[in-house]
């Protein structure tokens, strides 16, 4: 399988969690960005074919730009968009750290009730990707899918306990 998936349950009702993704004034507050980043929405058009153009300013003042292009918006069940790193003009660019990081990642976000909270499941898969991008992506996935990821993690933990790695 050519995709990555991760889930988290949030202690909030589904409509509120969904709002945080599709309402620009809310999205700007967290902006799918790392801790410490300030987000500014340079463009926000939430409908299929529309997109967010986000300026993320890091704690060090460094700025990067991201584009989230909507493919499907199904309140309050699912959201599909393409995640890319771009420039100030919203032109998609390569990841500066990992040049083979897929430039376009199809991001499917599913929202489900989970008790009084909301379970969010993200599925990531490269689209319109070069061979190198797919290889890069697969390199990270093949390990998990080969079924020995757990062994590997356990092994690493044991080793760390044995001889602490500074």
């Amino acid at each position, binding site marked *: 399988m050519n995709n990555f998936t*991760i889930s988290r349950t949030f202690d*909030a009702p589904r409509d*509120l*969690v969904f709002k945080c993704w599709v309402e620009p004034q809310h999205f700007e507050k967290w902006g799918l960005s790392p*801790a410490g980043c300030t987000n500014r929405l340079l463009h926000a058009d939430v409908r299929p074919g529309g997109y967010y153009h986000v300026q993320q300013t890091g704690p060090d003042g460094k700025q990067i730009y991201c584009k989230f292009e909507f493919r499907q918006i199904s309140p309050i069940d699912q959201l599909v968009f393409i995640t890319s790193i771009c420039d100030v003009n919203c032109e998609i660019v390569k990841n500066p750290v990992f040049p083979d990081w897929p430039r376009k990642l199809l991001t499917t976000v599913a929202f489900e009730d989970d008790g009084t909270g909301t379970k*969010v499941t993200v599925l990531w898969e490269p689209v319109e990707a070069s061979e190198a991008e797919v290889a890069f992506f697969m390199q*990270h996935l093949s390990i998990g899918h080969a079924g020995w990821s757990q062994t590997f993690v356990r092994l*690493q933990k044991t080793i760390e306990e044995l001889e602490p790695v500074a």
Partner: protein
Amino acid sequence: MDELSLVFGALADPTRRAILARLTQGEATVAELAKPFSISLPAVSKHLKVLETAGLLKQRVVAQTRPCRVEGEPLKRAADYVEMFRPFWDERFDRLAGYLEQLKAEDQEHE
């Protein structure tokens, strides 16, 4: 080949993973490592060579024996690399969770 490719290549084999798992319990000689496997000493030596090339294993020469021990650092770097997508999303989910808490608190103030 770069270190990560060597480490992943070395870890792709179940016998080599079992050898590493055994070594996390402490040093062992080649003969001791070979014991649980139905393979010859030279075959075990071959596996050890692969692990050593990947930097996952160090061998000492003590008289006639060659005790092996595991090296954690390359494994740690490989694990960080494997876990690249997970920390990416964990960090973003943390931020969303923080913002949701803030929204809920504001909601309560209004009530």
